[in-house]
């Protein structure tokens, strides 16, 4: 347990300006963007890798849990501080150390936000491909820990596909450097992959070598409206089957269309069953062929109408609907929980349909937005947390959504992580053997279980 003496020692390690200990300030580190609450013992703000090493060694010596924290925007409870833990906030390790446009590499500290990296890369015609919806605030450290994806994920993959190497402080206090920063072809066992999506349970990233991707010169954005989820779903399947790889392929259901239309008055029919937002990029000739294929797919699958953005302003208007989903639906109820399930693409329509039926069955509001291109659905359940019956219904509906996902051959998280929220679903999604091997990996890096305990692996929670 942390006591005054230990806290004072910690203050000596990081300096008195880089530590928070008061009841009030700790209460502001008890939450992230999920509905859970933690109980941090102390918050430190290291300014160098060496300082992180000292903090970790200190935690190890006194057997105190540690948790790295970026923006605290995690949706699954990954950044909820374990009881009495040392929260290591990276808000003061947020530099871009170097950008090398020829090698297309950015070297950054973990506290830098995704957006700052984008802004720094843009002048060179480059981008960091992962673009989670929280990119304006979420940090690279957090993106790595959660293996963040984003709207572009369908074409470019998730964070793990864009990390060349990492500097990691292990729970023992040792520093390792993973990957091979000079070559994207990595013949050895690449330890980088273990840390992407480890949710801070294996070690603490203190530096990252990011692979940057050229921005394609031409973009085309379009929307189409359908009168059934099935038609929209088969349209998605046809587009992919034709070999088109859009950078964005988002689907919205009727609940969302209605809420957005009431909120923004963009002129969508309020009774439309589904809306697809599609964006393709590439060289001009390439883009034109892709657009033709997509328009054909619209017609073949009975789209009621479609729009193509002719200029940047029109493109922004089309995106507006997608961007205002949370704002529009958030007004309906004070609390919400967003899921992050993945199903095979050909099951997308049926999954959307099933979830819509559950909303009716339980009498609750479920808005559905999905990254259709990779089968990643974000059903969001809206409720009033002060009404126990609503909370109960939402919990039941959540369980049913997860079970249906597994039945459809899918899995429980595409990009938000397991955290605390989905711990109980892990045995549904993975076999006992798989979970045991995950635990062995955890034990190899963190035998004392001090690194973000209580997250990701169910066995750990039961201890």
């Amino acid at each position, binding site marked *: 347990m942390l006591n005054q003496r230990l806290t004072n020692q910690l203050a000596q390690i990081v300096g008195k300006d880089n530590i928070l200990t008061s009841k009030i*300030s700790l209460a*502001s580190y008890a939450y*992230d963007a999920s509905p859970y609450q933690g109980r941090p013992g102390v918050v430190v703000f290291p300014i160098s890798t060496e300082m992180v090493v000292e903090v970790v060694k200190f935690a190890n010596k006194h057997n105190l849990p540690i948790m790295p924290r970026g923006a*605290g925007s995690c949706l699954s409870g990954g950044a909820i501080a374990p009881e009495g833990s040392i929260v290591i906030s990276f808000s003061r390790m947020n530099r871009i150390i170097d950008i090398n446009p020829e090698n297309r590499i950015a070297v950054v500290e973990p506290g830098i936000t995704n957006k700052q990296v984008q802004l720094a890369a843009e002048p060179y015609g480059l981008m960091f491909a992962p673009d989670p919806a*929280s990119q304006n*605030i979420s940090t690279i450290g957090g993106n790595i820990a959660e293996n963040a994806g984003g709207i572009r994920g369908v074409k470019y993959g998730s964070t793990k596909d864009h990390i060349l190497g990492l500097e990691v402080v292990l729970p023992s206090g040792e520093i390792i450097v993973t990957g091979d920063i000079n070559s994207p072809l990595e013949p050895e066992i690449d330890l980088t992959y273990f840390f992407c999506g480890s949710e801070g349970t294996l070690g603490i990233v203190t530096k990252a070598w990011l692979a940057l991707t050229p921005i394609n010169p031409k973009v085309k954005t379009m929307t189409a409206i359908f009168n059934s989820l099935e038609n929209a779903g088969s349209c998605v399947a046809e587009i992919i089957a034709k070999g088109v790889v859009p950078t964005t392929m988002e689907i919205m259901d009727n609940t969302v269309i209605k809420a957005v239309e009431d909120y923004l008055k963009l002129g969508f029919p309020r009774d439309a069953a589904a809306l697809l937002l599609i964006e393709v990029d590439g060289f001009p000739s390439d883009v034109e062929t892709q657009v033709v294929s997509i328009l054909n797919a619209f017609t073949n699958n009975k789209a009621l109408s479609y729009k193509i953005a002719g200029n940047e302003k029109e493109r922004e208007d089309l995106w507006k609907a997608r961007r205002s989903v949370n704002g529009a639906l958030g007004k309906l109820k004070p609390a919400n929980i967003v899921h992050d399930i993945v199903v095979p693409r050909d099951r997308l329509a049926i999954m959307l349909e099933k979830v819509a039926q559950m909303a009716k069955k339980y009498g609750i509001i479920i808005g559905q937005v999905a990254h259709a291109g990779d089968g990643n659905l974000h059903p969001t359940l809206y409720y009033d947390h002060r009404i126990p019956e609503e909370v109960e219904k939402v919990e039941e509906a959540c369980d049913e959504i997860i079970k249906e996902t597994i039945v459809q051959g899918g899995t429980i998280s595409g990009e938000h992580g397991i955290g605390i929220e989905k711990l109980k679903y892990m045995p549904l999604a993975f076999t006992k053997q798989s979970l045991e091997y995950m635990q062995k990996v955890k034990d190899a890096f963190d035998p004392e279980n001090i690194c973000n305990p209580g997250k990701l692996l169910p066995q750990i929670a039961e201890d």
Partner: protein
Amino acid sequence: MKKDELLEIIMSCNRCGVCQEVCPTYIVSGVETNVARGRNRLIRLGLEEQQFNLDNEPELEKIVNECLLCKACEVNCPSGVPTPEIISNIRAHYTTTKGLPWAKKIMYRGIFSDNRKISLIRNLARIYQKSGINKLVKLAGLFNKTDEMLPDLPKENVRAKLPVLLKNFERPKHKVAYFLGCSVNNFFSSIGIATIKVLQENDCQVIVPDVNCCGAPHQSAGDQDEFIRLAKNNIKKLNELDVEAIIVDCSTCGSIIKEYEKLFANDKEYQDIIAKITAKIQDISSYLLSIDFKREMGQINQKVTYHDPCHGIRFLKVKDAPREILKSIPGINLIEMKEADMCCGGAGSYGIFNPKLSRDILARKMENYKESEAGILATSCPACTMQLSFGLKLHKLNGQIKHPVELLAEAYELKKI
């Protein structure tokens, strides 16, 4: 606002954290107690009295007072959480239950509430500056640079000069009132003089009603009773006027007058009067554009950049007008600086009570100004002008802080020579 209503509003925050990107206090500190999400969370816990109580926590009170009320969070918030309103309510609660701290009481009720007293203090402060006492005080190490925040004070305030300044038009094209705020009147009289001259140059008959302080300092400190008293006085004075517009050259005054409406939400009679008044409130730049202001003017060869006051861009929602005015002046090369719409840390008397945060935010503003390589930093708010001038001194930068209307007045003057 009642506790339940307040809690209901706070709960619309779903803790997504998007405010981190724009909250100036978070940007410079990186600490969660200094961002809208953290402030709302702590206030909520205080109101719910589960872990601690709103009233017995000096640290929470400090956190509530560290908000700049710049509104950047609210504008950027997907759920539209009105954090500045929440903060103002809690400050009002503190003031009601505990009374104003003595320093704020003297400053706000004792000085700003009364035009004569502001004037008196101004004269005393000018003696302090001109007599050399300030240098002695500095030698003695008192005041720790706080006195440097005061601008060089003009000899006379604007009101004293009105008899000479105001012209009578036989057949004016427009008839307007000019809301002469206390800061411009007493500390930055050159802005007030420029406003009057520019309006008159554009065939406007100008009336300067005998208003008192708009109440911004009182509102910000949570002194609700005094705020209401001042508002009532001003509403009475402004309601009597037969003019087509009420002009403000201080973004804060303009925003605060527009907020009077909220003070009398249950009073239909006042609501109607206020609605008429607010419909006439116009910032000087927007008004000049609306009357197609005179473009014949002399040349000012300068690189200029514009700092958006919070009360300009987010409260009055004025963005392009001052820039249009600047661009219309021959010779001026308008450059956009980075983060032009981020608060300068001035926020009224914020810098006096929260020196560390205020100066860290100011340092960032100065860095952005330096990077723009402009020679003039223009803005439309006396509180910003004070803070930015202090910034130039503190960071030993060359340059001048000017209101767009001052530059316009200068350009008109140059044409005549």
